[in-house]
């Protein structure tokens, strides 16, 4: 976050915030990690410590339906060319909406305790659930 020790004469007028430091071209084609985000932009603020549980992604079951990407309220699902890559743990608050909307069986995203090891979690992934007829 911006330095809130700044005095009234030290910032731009109009309570206006810039997204980036300097101009940006082809923003749509520039991946987030390559954008020069300004300190005012919430992209530079981590909310990782808000989480109690974290979603872990298991690509073995993912069908790249993009539901999690659409529903995530914090734009924390990382997807490129419609391929699901994983979770942005700097901005994920652990709300579990991605898990809720995941349609696969078993789910491709599941909530685990914050300290859980990713490999161990994937090793203990549940089996496909048989639906009762």
């Amino acid at each position, binding site marked *: 976050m911006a330095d*809130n020790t*700044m*005095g*009234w*004469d030290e*910032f*731009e*007028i*109009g*309570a*206006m*915030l*810039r*997204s*980036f430091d300097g*101009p*940006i*071209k082809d*923003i749509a084609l520039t991946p987030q990690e390559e954008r020069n985000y300004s300190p005012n932009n919430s992209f530079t603020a981590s909310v990782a410590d808000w989480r109690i549980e974290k979603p872990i992604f298991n690509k073995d079951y993912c069908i790249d339906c993009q539901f999690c990407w659409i529903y995530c309220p914090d734009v924390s699902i990382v997807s490129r060319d419609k391929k699901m890559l994983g979770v942005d743990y700097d901005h994920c608050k652990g709300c579990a909406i991605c898990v809720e909307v995941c349609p696969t069986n078993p789910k491709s995203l599941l909530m685990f305790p914050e300290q859980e090891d990713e490999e161990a979690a994937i090793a203990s992934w549940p089996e496909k659930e048989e639906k009762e007829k």
Partner: protein
Amino acid sequence: MAFDKMELNEIEVWDGNFAAAQALRQVQVDVVSAYPITPSTPIVEGYAKFLADGYVEGEFMMVESEHAAMSGCIGASAAGGRVATATSSQGFALMVETLYQASGMRLPIILNVVNRALAAPLNVNGDHSDMYLGRDSGWIQFDSYNPQQAYDLNFIAFKVAEDHEVRLPAMVHQDGFMTSHTAQGVKTLSDDEAYGFVGEFKPMNDMLDLENPVTHGVQTEEDWHFEHKARQHHDLMTKVFPKIEEAFDAFEKLTGRKYNIVEEYMTDDAEVAVVALGTSVETAVEVAKEMREQEGIKAGVIGIRVFRPWPFEYIAEAIKGIKALGALDRSSPNGAMGALYNELAGILVNSDEKAVLTNYIYGLGGRDLTKAHLKEIFKELKANADAGKPTTELQQFIGVRGPKLAYL
């Protein structure tokens, strides 16, 4: 750009509304977002007609209320356009919430306010209730006394407001009906002169600058809000007057018409003076001349040209040597002294000047301020000057029916 120019006569007989509409056309306003209300309606109607007839390239947005009208202006201005609208009275009152947004966001919107009384009781005629309602909103407020000035001050308002050192919205006030619907000779600028004076709109942090994305309308709490308001106040206190002076000088070079932040008429040797806004200033000037010729009273008039920022130092200079001042307020103070009285008292209280100050409430809901009223006021001020203290109550109502109304 694709629009036709208009040939104007050197002098056109225009009312204040049409003069303002012509000014909006000549500076090629990009967006007018409006909800028309009497008596300001012909201004936005005029712009819409110029647009329909191909004399201006822009957008006219019809919205569902004055709140939405100013909101539309704010959006268009933040997007990076030259923006203006007009309103009066109840419409102005509904706009108030968004006025603070516009000034806080430092958007140089021009609002033509055709001054009209505030209900109840409902009244379409001119007084300064709406102008006074806007005085803490962070806007620059220019005041015109006749149609010529309503025309001229629009150009000056755009030039000052859009300056990147200023970037504040500005109101151009004119008296409902007394200016807005009174046709008088208006010396015109050609389309090229007018546009050249104001210049091309220079956007700042506009939302349509896609290479430099910005967020407008942010939330701040106690950690930032005070600093932003302080910055806005600082700019109003220190940056606006020099820019207005510059614009007035440039306008005089172009047209020969000289405006001043505080207009002084016969104040050099004046013993008594009234301080007023709007058309009353001019009527008072005529009466002051007659007082000098017929009564031997050295009368003067101080007209407030810029009501906000409040020209504290300019008025302190203007009142030097004057022994009795009458503050003429055309708005019901509803349980206090009039605004001009209070502001003048604020100037006098720490000054070496010892003018006797009294307050006159007049003209509510368009009630005529006659020359006879003004003569009486000047005579009372003369008596105050001679006595060195008030000879009347501090606050008097002028031109109201019924038993005399005076307080304190």
